């Protein structure tokens, strides 16, 4: 019988090695795999490259990973935010490198890795500083730059429900990078609110098929859902 379920987050991320490239899902707090990141901090892997849309908010999640000195490099689209002080400090101190990638190119590069595409021509960033040093080409009258896949050793993502084959559904805008990262990493670890019986997910509505998932941890309803409290601006 196939079962990708793991007892807890520590077990699920136990083999992440020093120097690994780790993709971390989420757009702000939505879809951020909080428990998996906490377990990674406790586990101790260092010299990490983090691929994520943001570079951490407040003092938890990616921010805590940076503060703990585990991150060598960040590949993201939007590091600077009102509460990105952990990244800001490490970056200014020269402790963390930054590769800034426009958000759509970031998503498409991750998608390319999962889909076996060797490189692709994108119009985003043409004529800007992010295109410096990149191969350029005009195709059918439109200008493009060539971008390469972004792969990872491990992806840590958060979804809403899973079955034991690793099929996933998400909730609302918490979907964001999850389906892309799941396909782009050698090992994909998912935290979910709830594990359901095989067959309980509607096959038409599965967003990430289990083929892309290696390990699933049920973390229960997420703390911030329970608290009814939003980490962004108040409503």
């Amino acid at each position, binding site marked *: 019988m196939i079962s990708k379920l793991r007892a807890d987050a520590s077990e699920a991320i136990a083999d992440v090695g020093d120097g690994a490239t780790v993709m971390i899902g989420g*757009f702000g707090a939505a879809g951020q795999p909080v428990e998996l990141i906490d377990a990674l901090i406790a586990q101790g892997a260092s010299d990490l490259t983090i691929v994520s849309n943001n570079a951490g908010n407040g003092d938890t999640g990616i921010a805590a990973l940076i503060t703990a000195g585990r991150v060598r490099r960040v590949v993201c*689209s939007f590091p*600077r935010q009102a509460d990105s002080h952990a990244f800001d400090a490490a970056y200014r101190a020269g402790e963390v490198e930054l590769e800034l990638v*426009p*958000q759509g190119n970031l998503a498409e590069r991750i998608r390319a890795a999962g889909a076996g595409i060797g490189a692709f021509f994108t119009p985003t960033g043409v004529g800007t500083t992010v295109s410096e040093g990149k191969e350029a080409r005009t195709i059918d009258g439109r200008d493009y730059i060539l971008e390469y896949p972004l792969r990872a050793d491990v992806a840590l993502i958060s979804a809403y429900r899973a079955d034991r084959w690793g099929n996933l559904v998400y909730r609302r805008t*918490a*979907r964001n990078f999850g389906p892309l990262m799941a396909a782009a990493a050698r090992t994909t670890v998912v935290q979910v609110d709830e594990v359901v019986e095989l067959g309980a997910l509607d096959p038409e509505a599965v967003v990430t098929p289990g083929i892309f998932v290696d390990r699933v941890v049920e973390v229960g309803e997420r703390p911030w859902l329970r608290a009814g409290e939003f*980490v962004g601006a108040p409503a």
Partner: protein
Amino acid sequence: MSGLDPSAPNPSAPNRGALDRRALAARIAQDIPEGAIVNLGIGAPTLIADALPAGLEVILHTENGMLGMGPAPEPGLVDPDLMNAGKQPVTELPGASYFHHADSFGMMRGGHLDICVLGAFQVSERGDLANWHTGAPGAIPAVGGAMDLAIGAKSVWVMTDLLTRDGASKLVAACTYPLTGVACVSRVYTDRAVFDVIADGFAVSELFGDTTLDELQELTGLWLRDATGSDETEGMRS
């Protein structure tokens, strides 16, 4: 991203009938036709959503994976899994759909959005946009989805004050800040006037308050075509 805080006063704009941000948002809303699929950038452009006539069906796209975005939720009904690009809580309208980031940015890059409205540091005469980075030494760059929106939407509009707080024109011959996109802006809505990007520079299609074309030329230091009497503007309702 826009450097344009919706709630801040604008000390550089003399009070002579120049539009405040809500009035400018309402003006922009008039040019958005029913059925349009629209992305509103972080900051002031988000005010446009509230200015759309009740009952008019305009479909809002948010880069983080949603079409059919509704207004901010009632207090107590915030869903942490449902936010907009500015990471503010929003709601879901009937007809909404969710999708992942590659699909969301494919919608931009593939030219499927009708309109996006962005803030700006500078817009040049050929429609170059600078709105993501001042280029100041030591500043931490953060681009997000701005470059994808700039090159992707069928019509890229800018909403901004004409002048910076220091009185410098945001409409320029050539951008000095790092670019977001090249020749991508088609129209600039400012507190003083509406400008269309045309083949040889900016054309003024509409003046607010007692602003005059001469005064705009002086403030911007640019030659401006007078199109205030013309119907040959880019507006989608024309």
